[in-house]
């Protein structure tokens, strides 16, 4: 009977696969079968590393520790360096590097950090770190702070890594938001890099007018869900998202200053943007490649994505420029949002000392220099001047000097999960009354931050 035959062959296939597969929990996570060399140049930090995943050089059996790093931000070469350095101190200890993805990282960390086989060193986004610190999931590093870099560590990341006065999360690397622009379009319209924010608005308007023939053209590309774009305006006007007063969080989006900033944003959007009013920024590089963008606020790695030879438009490279968003007066910058990551040791790690040694290497100038050379902002202030490579990297470093962060609360992740801020900016983009929408957002944020 055919059904039986199918069942039998499926069973056989399953048995064979199960036999081939290794179920041992100790199987090395660091080696991989396919080791096709990567074609990506190292200047584009954007490429996914395809070299053989790092393994430890240590020999023999012994302890092993698990290192979790997320996304594509840390290239394999960096990790190799760290592992080599680590094995100089601990030749018999194996470092299992496991690259995780950002998606679902909170669920993963929640389960893994409380499990019996917890990873030892983990990377946390700076907006997620507070929640885990407050929960007691991480090892207290206050005593070792000086040893790990002390005052040289980037301040706003240190804030993200500190809870209730105790230090848990070591700054790892950062990225600041900058403005990407089309050099050729600027030239055609006779525009110089704006030195004040009013100049930027004027430039955006001129670009839109001069390029009206291009469908969907944006002088400044501002899709509604990109709430990060609102932050410099809010901060520049003297406002903020929320602040703590007497131990309670108070929403500040509807304060006069913030409303002034948000109204300015609304003006920017109405007068210069051709992006979908409720769209997100996931396709911004496509819009740029399609020639629909004059300027756009973006993270520092955006030019890399735009010029990526597989998925972007490499021939645009000569026309891409970067500058830090200007402030009210010439020579100043608008406060920039600093994104980044922190490293931490799991409270349940079975190898606290080994983990600490690895952590120290990851925070060391030798390691962090790699980030600077790649154009990413390192965790050490002393290396900020070394951030080299592209115009973008330099703009980032400049922006980083005047950077701000979201409210430092263990409940901030919930605010982001509820999409309160994108909703507010989408409504404002659509022309709704700024103060009303801001007040709505404030109420929602207060409810969440205050538990």
């Amino acid at each position: 009977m055919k059904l039986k035959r199918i069942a039998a062959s499926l069973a056989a296939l399953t048995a064979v696969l199960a036999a081939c597969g290794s179920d041992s929990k100790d199987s090395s996570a660091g080696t991989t079968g396919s080791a096709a060399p990567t074609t990506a140049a190292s200047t584009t930090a954007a490429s996914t590393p395809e070299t053989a995943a790092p393994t430890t050089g240590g020999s023999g059996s012994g302890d092993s520790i698990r290192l979790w790093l997320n996304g594509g931000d840390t290239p394999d070469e960096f990790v190799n360096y760290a592992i080599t350095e680590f094995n100089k101190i601990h030749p018999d200890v194996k470092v299992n590097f496991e690259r995780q993805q950002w998606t679902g990282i909170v669920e993963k960390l929640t389960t893994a950090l409380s499990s019996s086989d917890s990873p030892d060193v983990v990377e946390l986004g700076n907006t997620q770190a507070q929640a885990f610190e407050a929960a007691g999931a991480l090892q207290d590093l206050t005593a070792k702070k000086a040893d790990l870099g002390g005052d040289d560590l980037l301040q706003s990341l240190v804030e993200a890594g500190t809870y209730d006065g105790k230090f848990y999360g070591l700054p790892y690397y950062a990225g600041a938001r900058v403005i990407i622009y089309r050099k050729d379009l600027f030239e055609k319209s006779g525009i110089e890099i704006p030195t004040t924010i009013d100049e930027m608005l004027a430039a955006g308007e001129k670009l839109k007018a001069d390029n009206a023939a291009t469908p969907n053209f944006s002088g400044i590309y501002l899709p509604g869900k990109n709430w990060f774009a609102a932050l410099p305006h809010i901060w520049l006007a003297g406002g903020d998202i929320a602040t703590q007063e007497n131990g309670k969080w108070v929403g500040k989006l509807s304060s006069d200053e913030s409303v002034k900033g948000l109204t300015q944003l609304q003006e920017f959007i109405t007068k210069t943007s051709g992006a979908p009013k409720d769209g997100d920024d996931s396709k911004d590089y496509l819009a740029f490649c399609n020639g629909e963008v004059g300027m756009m606020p973006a993270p520092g790695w955006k030019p890399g994505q735009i010029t990526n030879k597989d998925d972007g438009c490499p021939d645009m490279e000569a026309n891409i420029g970067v500058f830090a968003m200007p402030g009210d007066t010439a020579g100043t910058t608008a406060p920039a949002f600093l994104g980044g990551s922190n490293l931490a040791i799991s409270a349940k790690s079975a190898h606290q000392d080994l983990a600490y040694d690895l952590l120290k290497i990851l925070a060391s100038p030798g390691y962090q220099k790699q980030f600077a050379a790649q154009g990413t902002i390192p965790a050490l202030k002393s290396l900020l001047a070394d951030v080299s490579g592209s115009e973008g990297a330099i703009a980032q470093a400049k922006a980083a000097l005047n950077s701000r962060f979201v409210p430092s609360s263990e409940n901030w992740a919930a605010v982001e999960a509820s999409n309160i801020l994108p909703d507010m900016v989408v409504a404002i983009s659509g022309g709704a009354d700024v103060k009303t929408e801001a007040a709505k957002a404030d109420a929602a944020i207060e409810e969440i931050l205050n538990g």
Partner: protein
Amino acid sequence: MTATLDSMTLVPQPQRVEERSRKRGGNIVPNVLAVIVFLISTFPVYWMVLTSFRRGVDIQRPTPQFVPSPGTLQNYRKVFNRDFFWTAVQNSLTVTLSVLALALLLAFLAAVAVSRFRFRGRKAFIIMILLVQMVPAEALIISLFRILDGWQLVNTILGLTLTYLAFVLPFTIWTLRGFVANVPKELEEASMMDGSTRLRAFMTITLPLVAPGLVATGVFAFIQAWNEFIFALVIMNKPDKQTLPVWLQAFNEGAKGTDWGGVMAGSTLMAIPVVIFFLLVQRRLASGLTAGAVKG
């Protein structure tokens, strides 16, 4: 059902009843409708495959292009070359096939128990499996992980298989129940009166008649296990233990943004085993008694 049962020899034949009817195949209207259904069903699939052959920058244009030009194989190359692809394929296949086999077996037994027998606790069991399906699975992740952790089954094929089994079983039992119930007891009884044992009656009478139900739920179980994401993400947190959907997720975060070409290439490849599996079993989707056999 009015067939006489005295001396029936029931021989389910692979030949299909419909083929004997003069109404089949000739009409324009059904065929036109069929084409429309086909087009609507496959347009997104076509778009996915199309995108997988496109360069990233061409994926979104104001004027849609229906043919990839310039096309590229780069996305597929990326997928095959990326770390752990074949490991993920192996993991996915092992887990999915194991879940398929176990689910069908256990669910069939349970469905038979519940539809053919009266026993205490029967109704309670049925209500329980219905209630269990009402619980959103995401709410159970953390607790489930804790159990697996306690049994040292995190990052194991067995652990993930058991997890999927627990979620697929209720629905499979629920649906098979209906198929088993649809096969009249009289057929079995008649066969047993002819001397065969209960077991043989099952194998030769009931099983073939329930086969369509097994195929439908089997395909569903396959798809559930094959495409499941969040539990695989959390339970298999070591890169060499990942299943395909989790592995594919990396493309959403590759190159500092979503690598749509890679995502679509990966998704296209992922769809292939499902379609193959279906093509293998689809003939069994409709097996029924042939009229001649019933009259014996």
